[in-house]
């Protein structure tokens, strides 16, 4: 059926109607593994075709559809619409509890913001790993605040709106103070019921931390 053998340019055969050409371009763009140039299309389509025009039509046709005709360099391809990229991913969500170091660091930032890393370390009594800070930033719970106007101009950390949203706080000043914590029974040495196992493990940690502290 291919009319590529038709003599020269003044073809004896008429080029297929534009609708047909559009179908051809559509099929070629769909099936070819790489983007296709207009020259290549011209070579593959019957003589007298106008792939550039066919592309223009096709492009309009796919406008707003689930896939679009896009230009890639000087070639053309069909690609999934950008807003539907999420369909190409199958997410499996795994929920993990934030580590104790991260919770404590986060708590210190929340209660003391803006706070420098050195200050966090001073309060926690142990050094804060880079990973912990990074994780909290990635979670978008803390962010960099202003630099402190002290020697070395250290960066400070503050909590984010995302943090407030997650913990249901209007602002960080809403966090209960130590007194309130104590009156709420949160400062008792005994763990609240239901967290026994975890707290035990933490206690083991705790001991280590303290030994560390006293060895200083």
């Amino acid at each position, binding site marked *: 059926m291919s009319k590529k053998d038709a003599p020269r340019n003044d073809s004896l055969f008429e080029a297929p109607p534009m609708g047909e050409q559009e179908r051809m371009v559509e*099929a070629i763009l*769909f*099936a*070819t*593994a*790489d983007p296709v140039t207009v020259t290549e299309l011209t070579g593959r389509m019957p003589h007298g075709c106008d792939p550039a025009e066919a592309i223009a039509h096709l492009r309009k046709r796919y406008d707003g559809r689930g896939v679009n005709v896009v230009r890639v360099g000087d070639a053309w*391809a*069909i*690609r*999934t619409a950008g807003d539907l990229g999420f369909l*190409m*991913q*199958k*997410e*499996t*969500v*795994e*929920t*993990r*509890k*934030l580590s*104790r170091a*991260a*919770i*404590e660091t*986060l*708590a*210190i930032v*929340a*209660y003391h913001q803006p706070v420098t890393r050195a200050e966090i370390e001073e*309060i*926690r*009594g142990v050094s804060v790993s880079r990973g912990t800070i990074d*994780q909290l930033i990635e*979670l978008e719970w803390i962010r960099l605040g202003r630099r402190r106007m002290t020697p070395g101009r250290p960066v400070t950390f503050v909590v984010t709106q995302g943090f407030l949203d997650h*913990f*249901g*706080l209007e602002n960080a000043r809403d*966090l*209960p103070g*130590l007194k309130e*914590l*104590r009156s709420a029974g*949160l*400062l008792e*040495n005994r763990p*609240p019921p239901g967290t026994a196992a975890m707290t035990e493990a933490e206690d083991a940690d*705790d*001991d280590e931390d*303290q*030994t560390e502290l*006293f060895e200083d």
Partner: protein
Amino acid sequence: MQGEEFQEDAMSVSERVAAEALIVDVGAFEGPLDLLLTLSRTQKVDLRQISILALAQQYLAFVEQAKRLRLELAADYLVMAAWLAFLKSRLLLPPDPSEEGPSGEELAAHLAFQLERLEAMRNAAAQLMARDQLGRDFFARGITEDVQRVRRVTYTATLLDLMQGYARIRTRDDFRPFVMDRQHVMTMEQALERMRGLIGFAGNWTDIVSYLPDGWDADPQRRRSTTAATFAASLELAKEGKIEIRQGDTFAPIEIRKRDPRDE
């Protein structure tokens, strides 16, 4: 029957050539059924109206000729020849009521069915292969996007975690002495247990200081704790009548020795 034989002899030259060609090409056949199907085409009739008797004779003639040409025929061709000879005799002779098994007609009908079915499958296979095929006539997507499996980890923490975490840090000082004491304290029970093990060897007066565990005298806290515990333990042992205690003067070394039961 005579007529049939005559017919066979009267095969045209071209038919004879064809038959010989069949023999030479016997390797090209996929077994006797395939050969029978090819032979049946010479009858130029619908397979449903085929003469199985004629076909059996054609086949037997083929095998005869092969033998004459000293061509080795595979065993299954000879088995088929034997079976067709049997079928031929059944078809030609009037049915013997005493004989068991299916009639010649039944066997012939089944062979005809087999041939028809094989031919039907060959036609079906040809039709199938003539269909548009994926990757030849129609095509799948050239640029595929695989579904990525993304494992996303979300971390959770509650306000309670946060407050408890903060409380833990801010009140660590409150708890410190308590925890520290445990680290640097020898209890009376510990001292008592230790002394019970050692007292058996203390026949002579010995300074109580020598009962302190090794390494506990370097740290003042520890030394105090262990001295007190050991002293308390020795009082307990004296009360039990296990040892005697004496002290020469105020602040003089306290000495203990095992109490000999004979002293009583």
